[in-house]
């Protein structure tokens, strides 16, 4: 700036001289113009100007040098910055790759486990299918092969009794009777087992079912089979549910026949089909005022072939409640019972 302020009057002076010279040259002539230029010592002014410009150039060079230095400093910084940035990026990349690697390993592990559990499941499904087929062929052979010899046992002991009765005393005849009775009973047992296994095997056919209508039909059949008995039935007008009609009919038949059977020794027999609410769910029940049972044995009640009464007291093979339980379980429900000896029993069940 300083140099420029010095330069401006010099240039102005030089321009003034030149102007004068030009004017003089036009007005007076070339000699007069040259005289003006010499008088004003033009060369000195030019030299001064040169010096000033030289100083400016020197200044400029200095500044350029400083700028160059600054530039190189900043580019070094930039380089450092780039290095640091790259290093950070590398670290991040490294961490990311480790994380990805870990993620891949976890994923592979999970996939491996998934595959294994799938294989396991498939194997279990295959085993189940095989077991089911075996069960089916087992029940088939029970139905066919185990039942056939019973006919021989029963038939030929009966034939002995019929054709050779006079050769045996009463005790021996009684024994033959017992052989054929046992064979007949076993035949019934086999049939019951088959019915029970069928209830498990057959696919459910869900539909609208009126439990009350089913119950009235069953009650009518029971009453017809034993018209001398008087039982007070309480059945609601309608009791709509969703379920498999055949299976629900089997279950209800078992429950109502049981109630009918175990109230057989009461003159004022009462059997009721009803509903109640428990924890927001509808619970269906069959209540009777018959022989009841001891709650100590409640756990045995629903097991196949477990009986709480002797066949002499109340006939039966002990499969009815096991059947009821299967039907209810197949409907996703629960079944339980309460009883008091000689006061009656209540069988509760839910259906979902």
């Amino acid at each position, binding site marked *: 700036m300083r140099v420029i302020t010095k330069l401006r009057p010099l240039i102005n002076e030089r321009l003034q001289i030149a102007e004068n010279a030009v004017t003089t040259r036009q007005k007076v002539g070339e000699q007069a113009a040259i005289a003006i230029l010499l008088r004003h010592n033009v060369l000195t002014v030019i030299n001064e100007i040169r010096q000033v410009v030289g100083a400016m150039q020197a200044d400029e060079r200095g500044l350029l040098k400083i700028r160059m230095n600054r530039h190189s400093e900043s580019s070094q910084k930039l380089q450092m910055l780039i290095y640091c940035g790259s290093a950070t990026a590398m670290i991040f990349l490294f961490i990311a790759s480790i994380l990805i690697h870990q993620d891949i390993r976890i994923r592979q592990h999970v996939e491996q486990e998934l595959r294994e559990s799938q294989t396991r499941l498939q194997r279990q499904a295959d085993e189940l299918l095989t077991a089911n087929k075996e069960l089916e062929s087992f*029940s*088939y052979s029970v*139905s*066919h*092969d185990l*039942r*056939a*010899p*019973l*006919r*021989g046992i*029963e*038939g*030929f002991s*009966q*034939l002995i009794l019929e054709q050779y009765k006079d050769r045996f005393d009463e005790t021996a005849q009684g024994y033959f009777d017992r052989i*054929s009775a046992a*064979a*007949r009973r076993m*035949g019934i047992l086999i*049939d019951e087992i*088959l019915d029970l296994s*069928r209830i498990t095997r057959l696919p459910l056919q869900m539909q609208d079912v009126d439990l009350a209508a089913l119950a009235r039909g069953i009650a009518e059949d029971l009453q017809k089979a034993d018209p001398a008995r008087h039982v007070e039935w309480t059945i609601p007008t309608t009791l709509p549910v969703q379920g498999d009609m055949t299976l629900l009919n089997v279950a209800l038949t078992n429950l109502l026949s049981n109630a009918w059977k175990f109230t057989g020794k009461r003159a004022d027999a009462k059997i009721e089909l009803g509903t109640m609410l428990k924890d927001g769910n509808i619970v269906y029940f069959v209540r009777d005022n018959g022989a009841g049972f001891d709650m100590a044995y409640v756990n045995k009640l629903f097991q196949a072939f477990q009986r709480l009464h002797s066949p002499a007291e109340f006939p039966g093979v002990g499969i009815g409640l096991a059947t009821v339980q299967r039907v209810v379980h197949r409907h996703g429900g629960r079944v339980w019972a309460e009883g008091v000896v000689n006061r009656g029993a209540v069988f509760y069940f839910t259906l979902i």
Partner: protein
Amino acid sequence: MDKIKSLLLVEDNVDDVDLTLLCLNRNKIANRVDVVRDGADALDYIFARGRHEHRNIDDHPAVILLDLNLPKVSGLEVLAAIRKDPRTRRVPVVIFTTSNEERDIAGSYDGGANSYIRKPVDLERFNEAIRQLGLYWVLLNQEPPHA
């Protein structure tokens, strides 16, 4: 034409054979009963071949009592062969078996059985089944014309 027709009993269980014959006898069903003990022998009898080649194939039994669970060739296979052949397809076949499996019953009717009877365990009911069976298929039923 009035020749008394025979019955064919296809049964592998010797007890069941004896009980069946005894009950037929008790119920005065006097027709001759031919007994074969397995499915292959049953086919030989029905198509008059093998040890039965002297038989006249058109001499159909009044009814064939066919067990299902048989050695060599099953009852359902025997039934299928009978129904497939035009010479024998009208012969009455009654499935007489211990099984009450639904697939057996369905398979028998699908295969063209005329009736399905489950053999009862107790002799009294077995005898009653034979009595009705004999009465119906031997006396009451109008035999099919020859194909």
